[in-house]
């Protein structure tokens, strides 16, 4: 089944490391946004009727900070989706949120309005590090959001963490992990910080005002995360994702498995399989600009900036490169059945070489990365690029 992604491009204030598309904005823009999304969905339905008729079993509101919009607006958007597209019973409906942007009441509204899962951008439990990251919230805000999410009855609660931050020590990170585990989330994402060009953080690093911790230390932090979370009952299911059994993000798994996702909102990406037109998938992307997005919709066209029709080889490469991010790995016969084309020879050779070199494990028809190579996975995956 497919997934639906809504990108809400608003934030209270930009964080220092952020390179997602989001803006600090006026209430006018926020008010107009749900309507733009509704019109985009209509345009999509007209152009891709078959895709629109396929049932979705995940809906994901990401951003930005979706909860910068009023909870009623978010619930309204969910209704807009349900009006236009079939959403399967028991679907996973996630909203990302950031501490300091939701009250207990807001969360209750979201829960009642049909959201089943909440993902909280905690990032760290250390005030110093939150400052380095330029987050708007303090440690207490995070604690409160987590408590509220629990008390308002979300089925699934996720916490996002970042490590490998300038000024962060291994001990700091261990403490973050302990506090995370103590908050009893169902899901934990732990990302190694990657300073992206163009961000204020990157600039401070290039000016030498901040320094990244050495790779070896960051790798040590990663190991600690895997160990601590495993001990606390979280199974690692992807390079940066851990969950209690049954609480894996079904939506995100679609990206790694190359399942169809329809994206709406500026800078949203999608992967479609329009019948007869792009058997190996059509990658779509709206521009990371509200102005361009708005203009497209007002002109009555889907505001897509980039579309890319995948060929069989492209599809295979993606299936391997992104599938291998999952700890369960990939099933070659399954990919072959889905994609309808056999593994191309050069890729087969590359795979065999990696298996012979011990860089990929082949077990019961599946291929996977050895756990100890997850944090150096680019060294392996680049051979398949």
């Amino acid at each position: 089944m497919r997934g639906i992604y809504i990108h809400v491009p608003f934030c209270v204030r930009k964080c220092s490391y952020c390179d997602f598309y989001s803006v600090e904005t006026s209430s006018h823009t926020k008010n107009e946004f749900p309507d733009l999304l509704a019109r985009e969905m209509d345009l999509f339905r007209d152009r891709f009727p078959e895709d629109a008729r396929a049932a979705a079993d995940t809906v994901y509101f990401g951003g930005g900070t979706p909860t910068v919009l009023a909870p009623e607006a978010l619930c309204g958007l969910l209704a807009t989706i349900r009006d236009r597209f079939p959403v399967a019973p028991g679907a996973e409906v996630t909203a990302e949120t950031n501490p300091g942007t939701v009250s207990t009441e807001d969360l209750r509204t979201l829960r009642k309005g049909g959201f089943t899962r909440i993902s909280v951008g905690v990032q760290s439990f250390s005030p110093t590090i939150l400052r380095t990251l330029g987050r708007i919230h303090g440690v207490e805000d995070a604690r409160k959001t987590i408590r509220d999410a629990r008390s308002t009855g979300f089925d699934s609660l996720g916490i996002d963490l970042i490590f490998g931050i300038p000024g962060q020590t291994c001990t700091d990170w261990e403490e973050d992990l302990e506090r995370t585990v103590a908050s009893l989330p169902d899901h934990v994402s732990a990302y190694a910080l990657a300073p992206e060009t163009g961000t204020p953080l990157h600039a401070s690093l290039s000016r030498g005002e901040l320094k990244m911790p050495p790779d070896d230390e960051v790798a040590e932090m990663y190991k600690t995360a895997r160990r601590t979370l495993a001990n606390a009952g979280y199974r690692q299911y992807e390079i940066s994702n851990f969950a209690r059994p049954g609480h894996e993000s079904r939506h995100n798994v679609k990206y790694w498995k190359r399942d169809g996702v329809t994206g709406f909102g500026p800078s949203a990406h999608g992967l479609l399989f329009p019948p007869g037109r792009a058997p190996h998938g059509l990658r779509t992307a709206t521009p990371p600009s509200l102005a361009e997005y708005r203009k497209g919709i007002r002109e009555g066209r889907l505001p897509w900036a980039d579309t890319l029709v995948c060929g069989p080889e492209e599809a295979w490469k993606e299936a391997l490169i992104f599938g291998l991010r999952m700890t369960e790995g990939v099933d070659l016969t399954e990919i072959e059945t889905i994609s309808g084309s056999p593994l191309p020879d050069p890729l087969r050779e590359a795979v065999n070489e990696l298996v012979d070199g011990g860089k990929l494990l082949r077990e019961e028809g599946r291929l996977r990365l050895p756990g100890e190579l997850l944090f150096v996975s680019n060294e392996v995956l680049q051979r398949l690029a």
Partner: protein
Amino acid sequence: MRTEHIRNFSIIAHIDHGKSTLADRLMEVTGTLTSRERVDQFLDKMDIERERGITIKAQTVRMNYRAKDGRDYVFNLIDTPGHVDFSYEVSRSISACEGAILVVDVSQGVEAQTLANVYMALDQDLEIITVLNKIDLPNAEPERVRQEIEDVIGLDTMDIVSVSAKLGTGVEDLLEAVVQRIPPPSGDENAPAKGLIIDSWFDNYQGVIVLARMFEGRISPGQKIAFMSTGRTFEIQEVGVFSPHPKKVDSLGPGEVGFVIANIKNVMETKVGDTITDAKSPAAIPLPGFKVIRPMVFAGFYPVVSDHYAQLRSAIEKLRLNDSSFTAEPETSVALWFGFRCGFLGLLHLEIIQERLEREYGVELITTAPTVGYRAILRDGSMVEVDSPARLPEPIELDKIEEPVILATIHLPSEHLGGVIKLCEERRGIQRQMKFLSSNRVILEYELPLNEIVLDFYDKLKTASRGYASMDYELLEFRPANLVKLDILINGEKVDALSLIIHRDHSYYKGRDVAERLRKLIPRQLFEVVIQAAIGSKVIARETVRAITKNVIAKCYGGDITRKRKLLERQKEGKKRMKQVGTIEIPQEAFLSILKVKE
């Protein structure tokens, strides 16, 4: 063409003293070049010559000159290279001439190749016209240089000609001096034909073109000629001269220098130094010819991508057609697979060939560390030539290793004597002579092992003398030396392409240096890389490159797929410049860098 109106001369000098620029002026004043054709150093035709501003190949031009006596003369000028690697070009050129213009840069004075080249010319009994060049320069010291020429070379400077090749000053006088002082060639037009092959090259349209100097007899199209060393015969299709563009003529007679085209398919048929004669009535004795030149420096050339082997082979074959001083033999390496062991006259020659292969033929190369040719004397008394460390026989078979030793002549201002002597001693040099030319100019003669100077000696010499020292050298002999093979092991496997032959006294230091250098060059990889330097079974240095611990795309969702794939593709591209040796990836530079000497 009456021989008394012919003048054949080479322009010889130390590197950069202005030979090619002077040739430009001579061609200009004699009207050989139209003003439209004028470019600086016209005769440096190859891209590489133009970029580096040096002459690599000697070039011949025929010019017509009406002298002050009212008569018309024909000049054959040969512009020669100044770099020591190409001194054989000078020696060939002068054997086609009766005279030489010795150019001395008045801002520099007599330097090593000035002396080496003028001695070559004097050995051949050439008439020397000494020219002081660059008199336009503010730092010109004509008096000092004049004195040096007298003291050092022993030439009379009474009738020295002063010119500025750049501005053209004095060039008319020089032309007159050529007419008056260089003797015309002699030779019997009716004797059996005798011509010396000075050069030959392959042309895609005309086959082999032979450049020859006629000494006796006359050759013309339709005539059957023979090459005396092989006895092979060919029928002449065309003869002509370069003025400077190729121009057909009816015949070439005694004293003339020109080209011969005779439907020859293979340049190997036309050995430089061989004698051309008439097939029907051949000359009795051939001309003396040239000393065979042998490569002094060897290196392995391997394609970066093994699939490009055939491409490399054909490129090497094509280059060899026009440069027989460069040798190549197929070679295999455990680490680098299939390639060629190539021989060169020196490091500059190596660099030029390497650059031409890459640029003109588009093959990406890995060049292994250059080595000199050794002789291994085995216990059974037999001798094996060793042009690659990998080919050194095992110690149990080996009685001794002999290395080539050269005699270096170094010219320098005496204030830098200390530094230069120190450098020579560090390089196992033995001083033969120290000659004070004046209170502040010295000539040092050192016997030096070739392997100590081949790589960076010249640069070091320049540094030690603030750029003022110059050096010439010639091969002296092979001498036994305490040499060992230094092997490099990577994760326990010997990488043959990284082996070196080195003096035992330097081996410990070098082993550590190479291991350290490789540690810095080899990027961190998935597994730890252990680098060891060993002599025989004895490990003398060990370094490790720790395994990489972080290279990950941590966050990857829908929006990132295309971008993240590009990132991986870029990482993959970066690896293409590496050579996979076993499971380890070694960057190309590693193979050359091992010879660099620590700063």
